[in-house]
Structures are given as structure tokens and as C-alpha cells.
């Protein structure tokens, strides 16, 4: 019935369009120019409905063409790629190109290369801001399970510069400072030792493990690391900085994955366990007997990967990247986010 109604309307409107030119004129009249509200909303509703029906028609036509092609055994028409903010990104000359010699040389020379070349094992000091309660410690507890060889030190009233000196002497390779505001972690500071750089991230959307439904509990194996979408020079640098927090030889039997996924300059953190299962597919009950022999052969070889999230879950956004270790007063910045950079939604820096 409903479908019939729609059809009627569509045919009516189509007939109307064909019928006289005045109606077309009215349809083209912008509803925002009409002063009477009742009339305006009516016209607007009509416009909206027409658009919707037009869209539906197009979708149906596309589907029909596809089906026809399948029946005839031809190549189906190519699927259109939706236009997103990411794939219409402004062209950026800082995006790294593969086989760029200078990039390789710069990477070899940077501060993280010692850790990434397995010369030193990473050793992380985790501390907090001076006032720390509720969600902060809970978050740190979970962070300790994520990052191997992490050591928590109470902040006390020590200055961060003193802590940096202390950590240098104790041969730590990085410091992670979790900053909380109103009992909610809101910033993350990662300092690479002994001579920088220092990255300051905004932290948001923190979900702790116990708040994730059907969460798993991670083991103490060294995790695998996935870094997605770090493309520019700055992105590479941030990516390498994050990489240097984790040991470089993952223990694959642990089946733990830590993901840092960059999308539109937001870095999403996820922590999963995965499992490969050879699972039997549910067969159709009707012709079970006929296919039973074949399906057995199929299912034996089929392997399904399943994921289970074991928290925490949070989002980072880079605020500044400082040259050298933490120095709030006399610091020199490699990258600072400034307001005049935000003139386009399609410009990304990582």
C-alpha cells in the first residue's frame, strides 16, 4: 500500500511537471524567499520529497543496471566513489613520497633511531600532573598493561624539568605525563629522552576497560603495533615517536594488537586481542545432504579472524611538537597549532 502511495505521488508530480510551465517555475522558486511560513514549509516539503524520490529512482536504476549486467554476464558498471573529506584533502607538499633518500637519511638520524634499530630497549616512565584522582590512576593502570616496561612514579611536587633530569640519569627512554582536569584525563605529554622532542596531545573520549562491553583481559605479551595513515613529515615523526614507546619485537603468540589510527589529524587508540578460528559456516538446511560433502572441504580451510577489544579506548589530537625536552618558557617548537591554519576543513597535518 505504502509503495503504491509513493508511486502515485511520484507519477502525479511527474505529470504536473510535464503539464504546465508554471509549476516548474514555482518549484524553482526558492522557499526561503516566501514570506508566509505555512506556504514556505509546504513548498519546502514538496521540494524535499521530489529530491528524495529522484534519489530513490537513481538508486533503483543503478541496481537494475547491475542486475542486468550480472544476468548477461557482463562487467557491472563501475561503482562510484563517494566524496569524503579525506579523499578531497588539499594537496600537501609535506606528504612523504616513497623512496625519498632524504627521508631515509633523516629517519636514520633522528632521536628515535636508536630504539627502532634495537640498540636500546624502550623504558618508559609514567607520571601524572600534580593533582590526580579517580579516572587518572585507573587510566594509568590500564596504560601500564598496554605499554611493556613502563614504570609508574608518583608525581609528588616535583618539577617536570627535574623529573626529566632524573629519568635521563636512570636511562629511561621516554616520559609519559597524564594530565587530568576535573578528575578527567584531558592531556598526554610524551617526552622522548635524552634530547626531545616533546609532543603534547589533547586526550578525549576516554573509555576505560570496565566500561567496554564484552571486553577482554590483555596478557603480558609484547604487543604488535599498528600505525595507520601517518603520511606527512610531521606525521612520520609522530608515528616514530609513538613507535619508540613500544618494544620492537612483538611476541606474536600473545595475539595482542595496539592500534594508533590517524584520521583527519585525530589519532584513535584501540587495544585488541585477536584469534584465528576455523569455523564451520551454517549451511542452508534445505539442501544439506547434497552440499554436505563439498561444504566440509570448504569449511576446513576457512579461517576467520575475530577481534575482542580490551581497553582503554581514547583519542589524541596533536597540539604542539616541541624541539628538545620539556621547557614551557624557553621552548622552541617544531610545530604549533595556530588558529590561522584552520581556514579549511580539508587540510591535515599528520
Amino acid at each position, binding site marked *: 500500500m505504502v509503495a503504491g502511495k509513493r508511486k502515485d505521488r511520484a507519477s502525479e508530480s511527474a505529470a504536473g511537471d510535464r503539464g504546465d510551465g508554471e509549476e516548474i517555475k514555482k518549484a524553482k522558486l526558492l522557499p526561503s524567499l516566501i514570506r508566509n511560513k505555512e506556504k514556505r514549509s509546504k513548498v519546502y516539503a514538496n521540494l524535499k520529497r521530489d529530491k528524495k524520490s529522484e534519489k530513490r529512482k537513481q538508486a533503483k536504476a543503478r541496481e537494475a543496471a547491475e542486475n542486468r549486467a550480472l544476468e548477461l554476464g557482463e562487467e557491472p558498471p563501475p561503482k562510484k566513489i563517494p*566524496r569524503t*573529506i579525506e579523499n*578531497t584533502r*588539499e*594537496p600537501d*607538499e*609535506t606528504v612523504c613520497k616513497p623512496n*625519498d*633518500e*632524504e*627521508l631515509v*637519511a*633523516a629517519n636514520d*638520524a633522528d632521536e628515535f633511531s636508536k630504539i627502532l634499530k634495537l640498540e636500546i630497549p624502550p623504558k618508559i616512565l609514567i607520571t601524572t600532573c600534580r593533582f590526580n584522582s579517580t579516572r587518572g590512576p585507573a587510566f594509568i593502570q590500564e596504560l601500564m598493561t598496554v605499554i611493556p616496561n613502563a614504570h609508574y612514579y608518583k608525581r609528588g611536587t616535583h618539577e617536570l624539568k627535574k623529573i626529566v633530569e632524573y629519568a635521563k640519569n636512570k636511562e629511561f627512554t621516554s616520559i609519559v605525563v597524564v594530565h587530568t582536569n576535573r578528575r578527567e584525563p584531558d592531556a598526554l605529554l610524551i617526552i622522548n629522552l635524552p634530547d626531545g622532542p616533546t609532543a603534547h596531545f589533547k586526550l578525549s573520549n576516554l573509555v576505560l576497560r570496565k566500561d567496554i562491553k564484552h571486553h577482554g583481559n590483555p596478557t603480558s605479551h609484547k604487543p604488535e603495533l599498528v600505525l595507520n595513515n601517518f603520511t606527512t*613529515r610531521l606525521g612520520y615523526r609522530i608515528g616514530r615517536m609513538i613507535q619508540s614507546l613500544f618494544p620492537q619485537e612483538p611476541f606474536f603468540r600473545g595475539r595482542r594488537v595496539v592500534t594508533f589510527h590517524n584520521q583527519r589529524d585525530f589519532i584513535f587508540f584501540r587495544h585488541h586481542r585477536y584469534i584465528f578460528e576455523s569455523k564451520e559456516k551454517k549451511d542452508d538446511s534445505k539442501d544439506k545432504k547434497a552440499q554436505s560433502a563439498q561444504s566440509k572441504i570448504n569449511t576446513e580451510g576457512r579461517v576467520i579472524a575475530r577481534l575482542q577489544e580490551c581497553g582503554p579506548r581514547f583519542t589524541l589530537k596533536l597540539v604542539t611538537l616541541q*624541539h628538545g625536552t620539556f621547557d614551557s*618558557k*624557553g*621552548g*622552541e*617548537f*617544531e*610545530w*604549533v*597549532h*595556530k588558529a*590561522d*591554519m584552520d581556514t*579549511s576543513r*580539508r587540510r591535515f597535518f599528520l
Partner: protein
Amino acid sequence: MPRITTVETPGCPPLRALTTDVLGLVKVVEAHGKVGTPKLVETWGSPDVSRSVLATSFADRQTNPLLAVARRNGVVELLNPLNGDALAKVMVCELGLSNHSTEDDPVVGLHLFRTKKTALSSRLSVLLICTEKGKACLRSIPLKEASSLDASAVPTSRNWDVSTAGKVICSSVDSEENYALFGGRGIELNMWDLESYNRIWTSKLPRVNSLGIFSPTCFTAATFLSREDHRKIVAGTNNYQIRLYDISAQRRPVVSFDFRESPIKVVKEDLNGHTVYVGTGTGDLASFDMRTGKLLGCFVGKCSGSIRSIARHPELPLLASCGLDSYLRIWDSRTRQLLSAVFLKQHLTNVAIDSHFYSEAPVGDATDQIRDLQDDEQTEAGGLRAMEKSPRGKKNSIEKIKKKMGNKTQMVVEAFELSASEDEDMDKQTSLKRKELTKLKRSKNLKRKKRKIIANNEDQIMLRCYPN
């Protein structure tokens, strides 16, 4: 419809700039044509961190230009800025500096003498080298070709200690190359006479503020304000301050003001003798009028990393800046507009502009445009002069300042007044000089062509040959 293209920047006039970076590469950027986009033309050297460039000095001459480069591994090289050949090399540890090691005592200051001491018949170039621990050395270096010709030229060197404690960060040599300036963390600004190797002036800590708080000295940038006068110094500190010192007036700063909230990393003087360009650690670039301490304006253009070096074109109103965001940016110094930016991949440490570069292909256009620009600059400068010359305006402004400052600082104001009147005289002088200069330049353009022909014949003189 999404904007897929980047915003077009207006191109810049023919230009050649040399940048150095942390991987020890020297990159050449050139712009051709009337409004050209600058492009990376050449890269010299192989990437190597130990050869990271710490300081450079560029002798911008018509014939025989030189680029001196100090590297992290303790090598000071003299390069030919036309083709990148190393002409001479000195190890800093061979200079006879006491208690020196290249690891913890890197070179921070380097100056290549342009006029004075190189006028000798032997082809020596004189370098002033200063290390972080305050050891300075004035040394003449024979160029490779010359050493065989002129064996009698013995390299002379003279060492002295600028300071025993503290850490030198900035150094500068005035345009006549008689005086050198040093400053740094825990080191007050001090000026040295390069004839007698005596310290002739030291600055003094500014007075404590009303709360009794003073900040420890940390000078991060220093330069001489005008070309004619070595007595006025502009310095930037780690505490966001820009200070004007007048060594003929007093040891404390004459004018002092704050700029934003990040350390001043570089201060560069303009040709007119009262404007300075200031770059900070968060990538802010601004110009100031040092006579009043007023901000003239900021250079806005998505500059996201610390500015390490600024270079001013000696003729055109152009400014080049570079820094940790690995962009070389060319600005119009009058309108403060970004003309173009070039991405050079590494953290850049220094930039120099080669002013004797004219693009070959569209000669007429380029020179015309340069002439236009010069005329523009002249008229603008003339306008300014007219403004300055009206004595009423000046008196009024000075009185206003007096009222603001009160009796306490009257002495300072008087000193400033004196310096301002001097400025006026100097302006007259400079205007005369400039007129002469422009005349000279026009005749020079003709001469240059002749010179080229002559230079082609002489093999011994280095040729200025640019690709295409």
C-alpha cells in the same frame, strides 16, 4: 564544491637563496622570471648528521662571493656559493683554542669578513669563530687556489676568551667590521674592538621590577641596528623581551618591550636603520620600529615552527625566513605579505640571499621590475623622511612620551631624543648616499655586462655562472 587546489601565493621577483639544514645539506632556491615561483635548484653535500650546520656567514659580493659554514663535527668550510665547491677547510680543534672539544663546545658564531681584511693582494679570507664556551678566534684562511700562488701568505690567528662562564648563544659583527658583539645564557652583551681585542662595553642587568623580581640574563639574539652606527644594538632575550641598547648613552637598555610569549630566536635589522625583524620560538615573525618600540605588524602565513634565521635582501624589499617547520618563506617586507614558500624537507638552520643574481632569460623584464621596486622603495622612504622632518610632530610625540614616562626616566628620554636627532642627520646622509648608490647601480648594470665579457677571458677569477 571542495577546494582542491591550494591558495595561490603571489610569486616573487628573481631571487637566489641558500639554505643550510641539520643534515648538513646546502640547498639553493631560485626564482626566475617576473613573478616566478621559487624552486629548489641544487642540493650540495650528502645527508649526514655529524655534518649538521650550526652557523653560516655569507660574503655577498659581485666577484668572488663566499659562504662560510660551521659544522657540528668541528669543521669550518668555505664554499663557493655558485657551484658548491669547498675552497678551504679548517678544523676548529686546530685553531689552538684551549680546553676545546668538538662535542661539548660547538661553534655558535661565525663571521666572514667582507671588506676590510680581504683587500690584501693575497687571497686570504678572514673568519671570526666563536664557540659556545666563549672562546673566540680571528683567523685568516688561504683559499686552495691561492695557496700555491702565494706561499708567503701565512695564516695568522688570534685567540681570546669572550667569557669564562656561561654559554654564548648569539654573536654579531657590525657592517664596518670593527666591532663584534657577544651574548648568551649568563653572559651580558659585550662589545669587543677587533683592532685591539679589548672589551669596550658591557651591558647591565635591567632594574628589578616593582615586585623585586629580576630574570636571569639569557640573550638569544643580537644585532647592530644601523649600518652607519655601531653604537645602537638590538637584542632579544629568552624572556620574550626585545631591548635597544645605546652604548653612547648608558649600559642599561634604552627601550625594552615584550613580544608575545615565546623566546626571541632571531633579530635582524632593516636597511633603513630603525626597523628590526623579530622571529620567535613559536613561529611568529614581526617587524618593530626601534625608535618608538612600536609593533609595525606581524607577518602572517601559517608559519608553524620556530624561526631560526632571517635574511634581508640588500636592494629589494624582500625578506627570507626559515626555521624548524622546514619551509623557506619569502615575504614582502613593506606589505608583510607572504610571497611564496618552499618546502625543503629538513629543519633549516640558516638562510642567505645572493643579491647579485639576475635571471638570465628575461633580462629586460627582471631588471625593469627591480628598478620599479627600487623606485617604489625610494618614494616610500622619501615619504617617511618628510614625515620625520616636520619638527612639530616629533616634539609633540616626544613630549607625549615624556608625560607617559614621568620624570624618573627623563634622562633616558633625553638620550633617546639625542639619538633621534642623530637619526635625522643620518637619514639625510643616508638619503644622499642612496641617491648616489642608485646612480651607481644604474651605471653598474651596464658595467656588469662588460665585466662578464672580461671575466670570461680571465680564467683565474671565479666565474659567476648560473645554470640556465
